[in-house]
């Protein structure tokens, strides 16, 4: 058959005509497609919005952040890797600081509950989590000291009884707005408040961001705990790109420090934010794939609806088909007519579905605190929706169209 663009144009106009003539039927027929496309595009849009939001937060959280903690190798017996053996040691933190060129800063962090009350005020002591940190902690966590001074190296080396508080601690302990120079009784030891640590804006990762916090030098905290106490290490890579490198270096240094044989598994784990980002992206891709599967099913159902109604249409219009053949329509022209009609039905359904999805997404993005304000239908989803609609039209329109094209004109004209 010679391709005839004018015939195609006519066929498209004819199909639109046919759809308009049977508005209700056409709408009900393409409802499956409409719902399928609307649901998938809105899910994709919501997911996309959530992803954008989460990735932005990862960025602010620090794409260079590194987290190191002991970890018993998977499946290994507890008695083979007791805590005392695999826990991190302060010397190891020093090694990390000295021997990892891709790691700019490093700080251990340990936490203990302590009963605290201000020295000057007659109040009951409250139990507050006290964190032991190195001075570099402020840069790693991006939380600077807004009043007074941070810890110095001397504080750390001499295990001085100094502390930093956050705003929540000031409130809870009833301290002055700038409590620098005042004393706290921490487990009956006097600690000098040297500064105030800023509180970060809440993110989806810091669930309880307004927790009451008191910070003391790491060495001081170590002395307040049993000799084999638990801590983890926070680090900062020189750049986000170097985070993988930093991870490898940390693993190398720690394996060597622990004397692990080449075939022995790590007794610790080094995590980077980048890894979390990858994991999250994989999760999002997984959800998208599941949504895709659901949509494939709904489009299948929609397609069967289209096929069904096209078969009805072919049988209803048998005489018309007979007439068209009698006046010279080739089988291919009839095939095209019904195929184009099915595709147009699907396309109209796809378009309606997209419009519905857009309305839905606009609604979703207005929900406060749902984290979906960035939700928008991505271009690829629009293209995919149309491509899928067209494919459904072709696949499910083909059988009725072939049936129509194969009709014998004599039989068709005799059809009641």
């Amino acid at each position, binding site marked *: 058959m010679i391709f005839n663009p004018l*015939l195609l144009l006519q066929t498209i106009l004819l199909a639109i005509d046919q759809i308009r003539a049977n508005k209700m039927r056409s709408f009900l027929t393409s409802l499956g497609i409409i719902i399928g496309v609307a649901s998938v595009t809105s899910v994709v849009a919501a997911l996309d919005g959530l992803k954008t939001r989460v990735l932005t937060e990862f960025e602010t959280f620090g794409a260079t952040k590194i987290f190191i903690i002991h970890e018993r190798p998977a499946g290994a017996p507890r008695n083979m890797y007791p805590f005392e053996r695999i826990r991190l040691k302060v010397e190891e933190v020093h090694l990390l600081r000295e021997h990892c060129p891709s790691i700019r800063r490093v700080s251990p962090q340990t936490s203990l509950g302590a009963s605290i009350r201000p020295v000057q005020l007659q109040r009951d002591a409250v139990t507050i989590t006290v964190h032991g940190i190195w001075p570099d902690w402020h840069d790693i966590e991006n939380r600077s000291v807004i009043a007074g001074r941070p810890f110095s190296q001397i504080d750390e080396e001499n295990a001085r009884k100094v502390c930093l508080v956050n705003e929540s601690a000031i409130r809870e302990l009833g301290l002055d707005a700038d409590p620098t120079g005042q004393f706290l009784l921490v487990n009956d030891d006097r600690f000098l408040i040297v500064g105030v640590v800023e509180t970060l804006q809440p993110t989806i990762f810091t669930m309880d961001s307004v927790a009451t916090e008191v910070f003391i030098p790491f060495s001081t905290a170590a002395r307040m705990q049993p000799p084999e106490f638990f801590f983890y290490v926070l680090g900062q890579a020189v750049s986000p790109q170097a985070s993988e490198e930093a991870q490898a270096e940390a693993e190398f240094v720690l394996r060597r420090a622990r004397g692990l044989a080449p075939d022995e598994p790590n007794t610790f784990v080094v995590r980077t934010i980048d890894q979390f980002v990858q994991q999250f992206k994989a999760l999002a891709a997984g959800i998208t794939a599941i949504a895709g599967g659901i949509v494939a099913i709904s489009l299948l159902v929609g397609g069967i609806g289209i096929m069904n109604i096209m078969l009805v249409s072919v049988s209803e219009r048998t005489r018309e088909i007979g007439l068209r*053949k009698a006046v010279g329509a080739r089988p291919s022209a009839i095939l095209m007519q019904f195929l184009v009609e099915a595709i147009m039905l699907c396309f109209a359904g796809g378009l309606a579905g997209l419009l519905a999805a857009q309305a839905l997404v606009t609604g979703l993005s207005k929900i406060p605190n749902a984290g979906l304000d960035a939700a928008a239908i991505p271009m690829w989803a629009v293209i995919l929706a149309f491509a899928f609609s067209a494919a459904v039209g072709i696949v499910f329109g083909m059988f009725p169209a072939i049936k129509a094209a194969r009709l014998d004109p*004599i039989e068709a004209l005799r059809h009641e």
Partner: protein
Amino acid sequence: MTIRIRQLKKIYRVGVETIHALRGVDLDIGRNEFVAIMGSSGSGKSTLMNILGCLDRPTEGTYELAGKRTDRMGAGELARIRNEQIGFVFQSFELLPRQSALRNVELPLVYARGGWLGRRRRAREALERVGLGDRMKHRPNQLSGGQKQRVAIARALINKPTILLADEPTGNLDTQTTEEIIQLFRELHAQGQTIVLVTHEEDVAAACQRIIRLRDGAVYSDQPREKDPVQMQRDAQGIGAVRGPTT
């Protein structure tokens, strides 16, 4: 010869039964002839009509239309022959219900090569030719039976067919309208159109020049119409056709 048929046979197989619908028909129809094909049901006239209209192919024998053998053509070629050489008029008009008279008349041009050129104009001319110049925008349900058949005739004529094939064209019409349609056929014939019509009404056949009668799948008689004396007299007086004796 416009139509040249030799030893045309059509055999159907229905289950184990074999039906010989046509058992060797020889037929020549010349340019500008006005022929009626008659016969009772089962005589093979529908089968012959379908083959003449290139809707069907013979089992055996040859069919030449305007010098071209069509009996071994494929479905696509036959569609083109139907489009370019044959104009169909059916008993039940077969108009597309939701389309205007004009759009209905245009239909064959949709499938014609170069058919978009002057399509509207040609359709208008064809409608004027059948006397429906003032009904172009009407839909079939706004037209009377006679008007519907005129639209169908205009549609058959639009591609200037070699033959106009009419299958019981007056079967669904009343006496008065039948007269009008027959008159239209006569006019078209007078303008040079070759017309073959299938009918079982003697008075319709009486309007033709030549009557071919089929019986049991073969030509039983083929003769020029006998002029009925009353008719001759009336023709001479210029009164026009009257109905012959009712059968």
